[in-house]
């Protein structure tokens, strides 16, 4: 058993629902107990869909367990087929139904429905949402895609591709697809099929009618793209077009796969973000310490943008996508940090508290952590809540995506002039170091409270050790004299925690028992040389 306060991913059948809901003319019959229909409101409330997800639940109850739950499933499947007349059907179990082992696939075969029925084996006690989505998409592709010779290849001379990966409940999938579709079309590439988002089973059947595949979300589509490569010889893209330079790389990669001149394709390539980050107003962003966490794709992409385009220092990177741990470890080695591969919310909280970043780029859960620690935060990855399914156009990908990233990430930081003035003058009744940035409406800035290290609290969050672990903060032997303590307060709040820890480390290493103002500045000089 694992103690969980927040979970980064839902169970795998929610991933399957994301595929079914993204598509048209597909119905999903899910063997599940009463109550599992809660998942509908992820789609109707968070994503604000105007239709009910195409999912029929058996919603069995305790009294049904004594009877024939298999018959219940068959009835539900038959009625769903009659009512919705889908062109393909998915059948599977939720976690509880997995325990009672009714075999939806076999039961549905006995019904002899005149449409393809794809049985899903989603091990709920081992795997999670993204895996479920990936597996479901893969099974649909395997079962429905027709070989090339069965498809009438159209006469168009243009190179042609599929866009794979966007789903329902995906973080900005709607606008990413629009942005990338436009980018590819402008390059002179035809779009054969976008899947699973708004694809029909017929669309899946004609996937092979493309020259190559564009994989936007490897968590969802890598497995299918690999199969398509093996079966139809379609190569697929590896670059994720998030950020200005990654989008340029993506254009080059696509141009190469499509046999187009990359120089011409990049001729008009531009984003405002590329200039905004170079403008002098952005100089103060240099070296801001940032912690990145999310699904592997977004975390790796965000770290690259943060380091190469924003000029931040990446002090930590992590993911909850264990399937893509290797990619994140590789990225981490670029920034000389240790990758954090975990879906344990408490472990991530402890890591952020220890690293003391100035900005957190993460998921909805990191917003919880950042709020608690008083650190500015921007959301870069699912899981997200309703405010991250915005009405306005807000892609993460492509050149417009780069613009969106710049605005979103800079917004929570205190603006340059205010930061300077607070460094110079203290004790202002309105603009003081304990106040939140004035462009965010002021209010007490919790980060300022943090400069008093709280070893006990951090220690408690070290979940893996049954004993109260001794965190780095709690082995402090040096004490601060009042003068040094006062001097410390003069350091701007967002770097104060770092200064405190560096000074204590400096004092400990040298056996200094009382930290004075001198020690503080000696330590500052020492660390600035490094």
């Amino acid at each position, binding site marked *: *058993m*694992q*103690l*969980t*306060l*927040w*979970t980064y*991913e*839902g*169970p795998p059948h*929610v991933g399957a629902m994301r595929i079914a809901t993204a598509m048209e003319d597909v119905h999903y019959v899910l063997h599940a*107990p*009463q*109550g*599992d*229909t*809660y*998942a*509908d*409101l*992820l789609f*109707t*409330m968070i994503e*604000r*869909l*105007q*239709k*009910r997800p195409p999912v*029929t*639940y*058996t*919603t*069995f*109850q*305790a009294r*049904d*367990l004594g009877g024939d739950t298999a018959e219940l499933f068959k009835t*539900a499947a038959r*009625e769903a087929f009659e*009512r919705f007349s889908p062109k393909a059907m998915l059948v599977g179990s*939720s*976690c*509880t139904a997995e*325990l*009672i082992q009714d075999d939806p696939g076999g039961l549905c075969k006995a019904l002899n429905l005149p449409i393809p029925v794809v049985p899903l084996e989603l*091990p*709920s*006690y*081992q795997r*999670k949402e993204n895996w479920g989505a990936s597996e479901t998409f893969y099974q649909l592709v395997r079962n429905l895609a027709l070989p090339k010779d069965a498809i009438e290849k159209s006469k168009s001379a243009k190179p042609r591709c599929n866009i794979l990966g966007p789903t329902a409940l995906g973080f900005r999938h709607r606008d990413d697809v629009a942005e990338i579709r436009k980018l590819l079309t402008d390059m002179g590439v035809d779009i054969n099929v976008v899947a699973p988002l708004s694809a029909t089973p017929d669309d899946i059947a004609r996937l092979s009618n493309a020259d190559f595949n564009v994989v936007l979300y490897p968590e969802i589509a890598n497995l299918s793209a690999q199969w398509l490569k093996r079966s139809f010889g379609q190569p697929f893209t590896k670059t994720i077009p998030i950020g200005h330079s990654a989008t340029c790389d993506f254009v080059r990669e696509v141009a190469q796969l499509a046999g187009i001149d990359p120089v011409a394709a990049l001729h008009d390539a531009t984003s405002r973000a590329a200039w905004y980050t170079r403008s002098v107003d952005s100089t103060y962003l240099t070296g801001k310490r940032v912690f990145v966490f999310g699904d592997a794709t977004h975390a790796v992409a965000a770290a690259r943008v943060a380091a190469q385009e924003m000029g931040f220092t990446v002090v930590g990177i992590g993911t909850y996508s264990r399937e893509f741990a290797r990619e994140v470890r590789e990225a981490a080695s670029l920034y000389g940090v240790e990758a954090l591969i975990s879906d344990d919310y408490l472990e991530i909280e402890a890591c952020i508290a220890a690293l003391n970043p100035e900005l957190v780029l993460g998921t*909805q859960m990191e*917003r*919880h952590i950042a*709020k*608690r620690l008083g650190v500015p935060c921007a959301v870069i990855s699912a899981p997200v*809540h*309703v405010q991250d399914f915005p009405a306005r156009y807000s892609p993460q990908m492509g050149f417009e995506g780069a613009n969106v990233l710049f605005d979103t990430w800079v917004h929570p930081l205190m603006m340059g002039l205010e930061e300077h003035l607070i460094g110079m003058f203290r004790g202002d009744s309105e603009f003081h170091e304990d106040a939140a940035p004035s462009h965010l409406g002021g209010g007490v800035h919790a980060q300022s409270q943090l400069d008093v290290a709280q070893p006990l609290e951090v220690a*408690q969050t070290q979940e893996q050790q*049954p004993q*109260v672990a001794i965190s780095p903060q709690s082995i402090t032997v040096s004490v601060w004299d009042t003068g040094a303590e006062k001097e410390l307060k003069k350091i701007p709040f967002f770097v104060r925690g770092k200064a405190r820890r560096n000074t204590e480390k400096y004092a400990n290493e040298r056996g200094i028992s009382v930290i004075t103002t001198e020690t503080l500045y000696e330590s500052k000089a020492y660390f600035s040389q490094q």
Partner: protein
Amino acid sequence: MSTVIPIRANVGKGCTDVVPLVERGQREVFCGLTGIIWLHRKIQDAFFLVVGSRTCAHLIQSAAGVMIFAEPRFGTAIIDERDLAGLADANDELDRVVNQLLARRPEIKLLFLVGSCPSEVIKLDLSRAAARLSVQHSPAVRVLNYSGSGIETTFTQGEDACLASMVPDLPVPQANAEQELVIVGTLADVVEDQFVRILNHMGIERVRFFPPRRAQDMVPIGANTRLLLAQPFLGDTARVLQARGARLLPAPFPLGIEGTTAWLQAAATAFDITSDRFQAAVAAPMARAEASLARAKLHLDGKSIFFFPDSQLEIPLARFLSRELGMQLVEVGTPYLHRQHMAMELAMLPEGTFLSEGQDVEKQLDRCRAAHPDMVVCGLGLANPLESEGMTTKWAIELVFTPIQGYDQAGDLAELFTRPLMRRMRLAS
């Protein structure tokens, strides 16, 4: 015993003998785990540890968690494949998780191990686990157990199961203790305070609430106890309280002026309060409530309403909306109908009201579309899709999360129904 409940005079048989349409099929409802969302705020030093799957964790998180930015007093011990291999191992694992949790949250005084569908199906004996852990962590922490699984409980029944699990621990009052009123069911703090003021005013001094705000505030239950149910979904809780000798006062539920008056009257009758004292206590708040309902009635009078099953609050709400605001009841769906607790409510429903118990959601949607009511009360999974079909909806869960009981909330309760209609009008014009 000189007073009569004023509304009784004009009540016929209503729907007392009506046979509801009982349907079985897909049910678009929450499971009992959802009760944790409000219970963890009500009992401030309790922690709710669900023993279940990732689905359970995801449910509570989706239903509540994303709105809560503080560290919540609930969590999930997620069963994994190792636990499914052998039961003995699962118990050790549970002990480890509980120890870990209590080390992190030393302020917790009461821990609920909440059963889920997976834990029920694999027959993990959580009641024995609770007993074992209670001994280990006594006296600092009490550990109790109840089931909030979807296979056994629907939405608010989770609260019923939770409260029922607390009853065996409650103390027994002294043999000749004075008669005491216990109000059962989670109410907003502000509503509790209002009821205490009114009851004190009419001379009932000994009033307690169950569940209490703090785990240590143990309400004594025995033959001297008079129970007033504040919520309609407390079948099991009422049963175990009555088994300890407490007497249940028959009353409708305190929604709207009529319901609140009759509910308070039930207490007044049991405590021999004179009609004058009763009137003196309720006159002012009643007058306020009447004024606030008059405005709402302008919008709701004659409008038709359709209830999908959700919380068991549907029948009392339908009674309030039809009798005090003039709404027409198209269908009143309830997940479960407790005839005895609902007797007075049923008697007050307009004769011929179409009642349904249970659900086959597709068929019910067909009925709803055919009737095209002015307003549909339904869950969040249905609300936006129905809005996009052109219907006006009121999402049902809000009725559980908002203070709606008592006189001073009657206007607020009516406003929950006028607001979607007003909004539709405004956005159209």
